[in-house]
């Protein structure tokens, strides 16, 4: 299925893979790009050297365009933002803040900027600053989340901006893709389903937790810190929530308790004491598959649903 997004970014299918920290490396990003979508390397809290290496590794693995996600709260945000411009990465997505200070440099380098937006006002602001598309991400998603759901955020953002809108949050199969298109999106971004892509290098235990998850298994925590996170409920989450509600524990202590928890789960496989970040769509994710197969299957399903929509109207 081709949409305006495919033309804009020179990709075959309008699917982004989310820039998930400790997950989205050159292996996963290149597999998604080779499968026709847009693979994305997460710069997370890594430094410039790590990102430059991953970009070069991805270039060795794919000839197709791929992107980099900049987490704007990273202590290395300035450095990794420069690497994106220097390396002339095809697309940069941003999260956890306003990318306005880097826009000029990226646009001058020919990098297409696609910020993740949690509200209409932020979507309008980045659109006028030169973003070529936006990712409207609802709180069904894993990791850092806003307040609005995908169902409510996507159409409101579509109404507010005249650039392509990519829907994210809660989408894990063709039904989600078709629904997102009905809301006005011309692309989708998926994180959770790609966690179990064969080329995803996270620990086996993390993948198994996603595959076993049920609809009710995720929760959010950390609202007190101003940036709530969605993850699977486990011993770590329960203890984090207990501390969050304990007024004798400072915000700094709470931050410190959460630090390193995602890496512990994703890289070392400690899915009890680590943070297994994942979206509400975990319950829809049933098998490990190559990224290209995920894309092919999902888009074929979406296309069939969109073509078959007529009978509903009698």
């Amino acid at each position, binding site marked *: 299925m081709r949409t305006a997004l495919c033309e804009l970014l020179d990709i075959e299918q309008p699917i982004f893979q989310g820039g998930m920290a400790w997950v989205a490396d050159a292996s996963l990003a290149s597999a998604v790009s080779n499968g026709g979508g847009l693979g994305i390397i997460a710069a997370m809290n890594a430094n410039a050297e790590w990102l430059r290496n991953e970009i070069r590794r991805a270039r060795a693995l794919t000839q197709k365009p791929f992107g980099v996600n900049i987490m704007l709260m990273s202590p290395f945000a300035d450095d990794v933002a420069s690497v994106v411009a220097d390396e002339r990465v095809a697309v940069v997505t941003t999260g956890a803040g*306003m990318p*306005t200070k880097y826009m000029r440099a990226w646009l001058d380098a020919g990098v297409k900027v696609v910020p993740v937006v949690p509200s209409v006002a932020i979507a309008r602001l980045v659109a006028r600053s030169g973003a070529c598309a936006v990712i409207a991400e609802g709180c069904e998603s894993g990791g850092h989340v*806003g307040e609005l759901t995908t169902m409510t955020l996507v159409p409101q953002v579509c109404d507010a901006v005249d650039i392509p809108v990519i829907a994210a949050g809660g989408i894990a199969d063709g039904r989600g893709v078709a629904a997102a298109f009905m809301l006005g999106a011309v692309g989708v971004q998926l994180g959770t389903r790609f966690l179990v892509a064969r080329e995803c290098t996270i620990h086996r235990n993390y993948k198994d937790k996603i595959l076993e998850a049920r609809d009710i298994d995720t929760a959010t925590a950390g609202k007190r810190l101003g940036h709530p996170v969605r993850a699977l409920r486990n011993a770590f989450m329960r203890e984090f929530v207990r501390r969050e509600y304990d007024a004798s524990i400072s915000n700094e202590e709470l931050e410190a308790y959460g630090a390193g928890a995602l890496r512990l789960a994703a890289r070392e496989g400690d899915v009890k004491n680590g943070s297994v970040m994942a979206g509400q769509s975990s319950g829809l994710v049933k098998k490990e598959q190559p990224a290209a197969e995920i894309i092919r299957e999902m888009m074929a399903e979406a296309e069939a649903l969109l073509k078959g929509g007529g009978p509903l109207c009698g």
Partner: protein
Amino acid sequence: MVFDKVAQTLAEFKGIDAAGIAPETTFAQFELDSLDRVQLIMNLEETFGIQIDMESRIECVRDLVEIVEKQLSGGAA
């Protein structure tokens, strides 16, 4: 007067009395999160028909008033 209009916009946004807002009232006192902050600035842009640079240093109401006045007089924010 720009201050009155800024104070009124702030008051409406927060659902508080404009009489309690002074030039030296800090932004921290309004307890705005990052989403509120952008929404508020967009509201001010609509009120005054201007564009405000999001990278502007805004710590108190006076900073905001100065930015708006500069924009209204044709200068860069």
